[in-house]
């Protein structure tokens, strides 16, 4: 419990660091909200016009004072207002988040349902042709950039099947599950492919380690069947590295899969930040990055808690 409390206490610190970093860097980039909105026409503005716009965008004050007032809002749970979306940043983020979350979950499900069994299979057939095949596949999977796969999928679907997954707008799962899955399945496959490859490899090597453990030998000495040795005795012990990997990957995916969202025209968090940076929507960039960082921390915490579920040594303390 104190461990949890300790971890939670580092959150604000890390988030503060992230916020300073994002606050400064977004402002250090040449170009501001005014040039982003007006483009080259911004050159036509008179100084008074410029001042009026700066006041509108809230960039007329010195950076530290902007930061303090933003931080003040933050403590009251207010991330500010996005100028482009004309809505509170939190609202915008929460509109985009379900897609990102679902996409991340879906890719993880794909990765785990394919990766773990394949990894286990390969480990139990260590050195045999099926093991070599799985390892080759996993290697290729890991070496395929998602943008190559994504572009390829769209191309093949549209040219040979006259079909593309719905693009542009997101259909929430509960509104129309079929449409929702039709929309997300291909992006999820794109993301899940390399992910599954990593899961396969990690579960294979974890399984190999575990299979040579003494307690597996003990189980065999008891007369436990091969299936039960693998799934009941070995697998639960091999899951920790798989959980670690999935956690890290999932954490990153929750930050939005920029490239895949771009290719499949999905309005997720990744594109939200990308667009917000392009449009110099400062409040939105800050809010989203902070939100993403927070998710990352939460996911990591959950991963640690998952260890405890998987491993009683961690759950019950002591080693």
């Amino acid at each position, binding site marked *: 419990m104190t461990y949890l409390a300790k971890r939670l206490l580092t959150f604000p*610190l*890390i*988030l503060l660091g992230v916020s300073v970093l994002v606050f400064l860097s977004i402002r250090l980039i040449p170009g501001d909200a005014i040039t982003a909105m007006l483009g080259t026409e911004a050159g036509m503005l008179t100084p008074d016009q410029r001042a009026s716009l700066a006041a509108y965008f809230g960039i007329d004050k010195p950076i530290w004072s902007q930061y303090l007032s933003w931080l003040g809002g933050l403590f009251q749970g207010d991330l500010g207002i996005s100028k482009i979306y004309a809505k509170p940043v939190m609202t915008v983020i929460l509109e985009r988040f379900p897609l990102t979350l679902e996409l991340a979950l879906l890719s993880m499900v794909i990765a785990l349902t394919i990766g773990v069994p394949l990894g286990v299979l390969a480990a139990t057939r260590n050195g045999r042709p099926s093991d070599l095949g799985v390892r080759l596949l996993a290697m290729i999977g890991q070496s395929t950039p998602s943008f*190559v796969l994504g572009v390829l999928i769209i191309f093949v679907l549209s040219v040979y099947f006259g079909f593309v997954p719905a693009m542009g707008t997101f259909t929430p799962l509960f509104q129309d599950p079929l449409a929702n899955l039709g929309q997300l399945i291909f992006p999820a496959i794109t993301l899940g492919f390399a992910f599954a490859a990593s899961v396969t490899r990690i579960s294979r090597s974890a399984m190999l*380690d575990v299979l040579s453990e003494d307690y597996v030998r003990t189980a065999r000495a008891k007369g436990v069947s091969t299936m039960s040795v693998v799934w009941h005795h070995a697998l639960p012990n091999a899951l920790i590295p798989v959980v670690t990997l999935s956690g890290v990957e999932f954490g990153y995916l929750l*930050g939005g899969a*920029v*490239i895949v969202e771009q290719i499949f025209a999905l309005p997720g968090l990744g594109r939200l930040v990308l667009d917000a940076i392009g449009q110099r929507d400062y409040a939105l960039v800050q809010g989203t*990055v902070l939100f993403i960082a927070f998710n990352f921390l939460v996911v990591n915490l959950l991963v640690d808690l998952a260890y405890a579920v998987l491993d009683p040594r961690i759950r019950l303390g002591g080693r």
Partner: protein
Amino acid sequence: MRILSALFRHPSGRIGVIIIGLYLLAALLAALGLTPHNALKMFAIDRMKPPSSTYWMGTDLLGRDTFSRLMLGIGQSLNIAFAAVACAALAGTTIGLLSAWWGAPWDGLMMRIMDVLLAFPAILLALLIIAIVGPGTFTSVTAIAIVYTPIFARVVRGPALSLKQRDFVDAARTFGSSQRYVLTRHLLLNLVAPLAVQVTLALAWALLTEAGLSFLGLGTQPPTPSLGLMLAESKNLMQQAPWLMLFPALTIMLGILGFNLTGDALRDILDPRTQGRTA
């Protein structure tokens, strides 16, 4: 040398080393100008020609030879990957090592800073750095290096913490060995194996990230080709000139494969636990 020959004896290591070797060779030849054609020369009448005996991998929109550009691009991509990983490894190792050695409160502080970098979405971090400094080779290197530094710091810190508990470090303390000696000879020297593995895997990742950044138009500046840039340039030509996309994509994949295979083989060779097992 010993490691190289061990790699060569390892079934997948051999493939990895051969791929990397070929890539280095291509990069070297390109750097010496020994490409079949001038990689930057535009053959006006030969725009978007499919692969032929003159242009082995066809030509691009501006009439440049894809194969020659690919050779040059490999060099550029490898340059970025090597430089970035070198920086990250140096910075990350130093941070991880000192953090483990000094212990609290430095450890906590430095690791929290690393957490900040980790929690910061990687591609965004790269985006921001690039936006601030302007795109280019140097920025790609910085961006990738910064993103990878915390990972190296973590990779080093864990084993460093356990090395710190090892008897030979205690022994050194009973002799009164200097901190520098202990850090370099007792800790760092024993971290070479995990570092080597991490470096090869990081190289694969850096190659991928460079490609991704260039794909988003933030990496290498034209006319120097990099693998990702070539891919990005050819994306909208996929239908008219599929070879323009196919070859860079395969080159990237093969390169990543090469590093991954080598990394895995290194892990096998250097890890006493898995010694003798083919992975």
